[in-house]
C-alpha cells in the first residue's frame, strides 16, 4: 500500500503538486490521469524517489520512504518508462536481468528468471534472449521493458505512459497483457497515462489530476456515472454514457426490414428467397398477417422434399417480444434463447421487426459514441 500525506512539490514559482494526500491499495492497478502538466508523472516519480517532494511524506507499507536508501528502494520497485529505455548495449536477456543482477542473484537464478519472463509474453527464449533491443519491434521492446520491471518480482510497479509511443493495435495488446500479468501476480501497479481509453481498459481505480490537485478518485464505473466536474466529463468525452440515448424498448433498436413468407407458400419459393437474400431463416406469417413462427433452411433440407408448402416445417423456437417490451429484457431473451434473433410483434400479433445481436451492439455503440440512427 502506498500512502501520500500532504505531498507538495514546486519548481520555482510553479506549483506542481499541491498538498496531495491519498492512498493506493495493494494489488490494484491505479491509473493517474489528467491533462499534461497536471502533475501525474511527478506524482509517480516521487514514489521511487526520482523526484523528491518539497514537503510531505510518502509511505510504502507504513514505511516513510524518505528514510530508506534510494537505490535499494528503486530495486524493490519496477519501473517502465515511455521511451522504453532498454539498454541498447545489452541483449534482451541482460536487460531483463538488470535488477536481479543488481540484487546479486546468482547466474542460475537469473537464467531461470529470463526463461520464465519470456514465456509470460510468448517470446521463445531461443529466438529472443540473445537479440539486441534494436532488432525488436516497438511492441516487443516494450514487452521486454515490462519484463525488466517484473524480473525481480517487486510488489510495486510504476509505469510512466509506457504505451504512448506504440501504434493503437499494439497498445491494446500490451494493455491486455499488463492487466493479465497484474491479475496473475497481484502487483500494485501505478500507471500514468493521458489516454482515457487506456485508463478504462486497465484500471481498478482512476485518480484524476489537474494542476497539481486530485479532482477525483474513483473506479472507472463510478467515474463514468458521476464525473466530479466538467473537465473530467470532457476528458472522458465519448465514454460518458448519455442515459437518455440508451435504447428503452424493443422498437428502439429492431430491424424493420424483415424477410417474411406466408405459411401457405411453396418450399421452392422459400428456398429461392433465402438464397437471394443470403439468409438462413424466414419469418412466417399466417394468412391474417399474424406471426406463425420461423422456418430454417436446415429444416427444409432435412424434410422439405416431403411437403409442398412450408407450413409443416414452421417452428416456434425463436423468442418473441412485443414492441414496447423493455430493452434489457429483450437483450436477455436473445442472449439466452436458442434463436439467432428475436422476433418483435405489434400488439395485434403482426410482425414489427427483428432484433439481432448486431443490432444490440450497434444501438449500444450509438448511445456511447453518439452516432445517429439513420
Amino acid at each position, binding site marked *: 500500500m502506498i500512502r501520500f500525506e500532504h505531498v507538495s512539490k514546486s519548481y520555482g514559482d510553479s506549483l506542481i503538486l499541491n498538498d496531495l494526500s491519498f492512498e493506493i491499495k495493494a494489488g490494484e492497478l491505479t491509473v493517474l490521469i489528467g491533462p499534461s502538466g497536471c502533475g501525474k508523472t511527478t506524482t509517480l516519480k516521487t514514489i*521511487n524517489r*526520482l523526484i523528491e517532494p518539497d514537503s510531505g511524506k510518502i509511505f510504502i507499507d507504513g514505511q516513510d520512504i524518505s528514510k530508506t536508501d534510494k*537505490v*535499494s*528502494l*528503486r*530495486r*524493490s520497485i519496477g*519501473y517502465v*518508462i515511455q*521511451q*522504453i*529505455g*532498454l*539498454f*541498447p*548495449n545489452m*541483449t534482451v536477456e541482460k536487460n531483463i536481468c*538488470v*535488477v536481479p543482477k*543488481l540484487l546479486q542473484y546468482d547466474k542460475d537464478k537469473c537464467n531461470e528468471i529470463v526463461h520464465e519472463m519470456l514465456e509470460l509474453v510468448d517470446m521463445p527464449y531461443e529466438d529472443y534472449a540473445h*537479440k*539486441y*533491443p*534494436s*532488432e525488436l519491434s516497438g511492441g516487443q521492446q516494450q514487452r521486454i521493458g515490462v519484463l*525488466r520491471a517484473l524480473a525481480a518480482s517487486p510488489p510495486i510497479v*510504476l509505469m510512466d505512459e509506457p504505451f504512448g509511443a506504440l501504434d493503437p493495435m499494439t497498445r491494446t495488446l500490451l494493455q491486455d497483457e499488463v492487466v493479465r500479468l497484474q491479475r496473475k501476480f497481484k502487483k500494485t501497479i501505478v500507471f500514468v497515462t493521458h489516454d482515457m481509453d487506456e485508463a478504462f481498459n486497465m484500471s481498478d481505480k482512476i485518480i484524476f489530476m489537474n494542476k497539481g490537485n486530485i479532482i477525483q478518485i474513483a473506479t472507472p464505473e463510478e467515474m463514468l456515472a458521476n464525473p466530479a466536474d466538467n473537465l473530467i466529463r470532457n476528458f472522458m468525452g465519448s465514454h460518458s454514457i448519455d442515459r437518455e440515448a440508451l435504447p428503452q424498448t424493443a422498437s428502439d433498436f429492431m430491424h424493420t426490414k424483415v424477410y417474411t413468407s406466408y405459411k401457405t407458400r411453396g418450399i421452392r419459393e422459400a428456398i429461392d428467397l433465402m438464397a437471394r437474400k443470403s439468409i438462413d431463416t424466414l419469418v412466417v406469417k399466417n394468412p391474417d398477417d399474424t406471426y406463425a413462427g420461423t422456418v430454417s433452411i436446415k429444416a427444409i433440407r432435412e424434410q422439405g422434399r416431403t411437403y409442398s408448402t412450408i407450413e409443416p416445417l414452421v417452428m416456434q423456437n425463436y423468442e418473441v417480444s412485443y414492441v414496447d417490451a423493455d430493452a434489457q429484457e429483450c437483450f436477455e431473451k436473445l442472449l439466452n434463447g436458442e434463436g439467432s434473433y428475436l422476433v418483435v410483434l405489434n400488439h395485434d400479433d403482426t410482425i414489427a421487426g427483428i432484433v439481432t445481436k448486431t443490432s444490440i451492439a450497434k444501438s449500444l455503440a450509438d448511445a456511447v459514441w453518439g452516432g445517429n440512427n439513420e
Partner: protein
Amino acid sequence: MSKFFLLYGEKLIIAIGTHFAYVVFSVAIAFIIAVVLGTLLSRKPNWANSIIPLISVFQTIPGIVFIGILFLYLGMKPGTIITALSIYAIFPILKNTYVGLVEVPEQYKEAARGCGMSSMQSFFKVEFPLALPSVINGLRISTVYTVSWAVLSAMIGLGGLGDFIYSGVSSNNNTLIIAGAIPAAIMAVVFSRLIDLLQKLLIPKQIRRSGK
C-alpha cells in the same frame, strides 16, 4: 634497392620500433588521462564549457614549438617526446569521451536510475558502454595524428622515422625521405585497422550503426 637495405636496413628497423613505441606509450598515457578528464567534465558540463575551448586553443600551438620548449626544460630524453605527444593526443579522446557521455540519451540514464543503479553502476554498465563508439573514434584520431607527430622526435635527436625524413630533406635524398614516409603511412593504417578490430570486439554490431 637491396643495397639500400644493406646500408640502412637495421637502422630502419630500429627507427620503426622507436616510432612505434613512442606512439603506443603516448597514446596509452593520453587515453587514460583523457578518459578520466572527459568523464569528470561530463559530470560538470558548466566547467566543460570553459575548459574544453581552452584545451583546444592549446592544441593549435605548433608541435615544433612545444617540443622545443619541453626540450629546454626536460632535456633530451624519450620522456620529453612522450610527454609532448601525450599532451597532443589527449584532446581528441577527451573531446569524444565528453561528447559521447553527454549525448547518452536521458531515457537510458533515467531507466538506469529507475532500475536502482548507483551512479557508478549507471556509468560503467550503461553510460560508458554507450559512449564507447565515440571514445574509440577519438582514440583512432589521436593515434593516427600521433604517428605523424612522432616524426618531430628526430628534431631533438631522439630517433624514430623522422630521422630518415629529416636527413633525406637536408641531404636532398629522396630515397631516404620515402624510406621514412612509407613506413609511417603504413603504421598509421595498421593502427587504424587495429582500432577497428578493437571496436568490433568491444561493441556489439547492433549498436555500432547508431554509434558515431
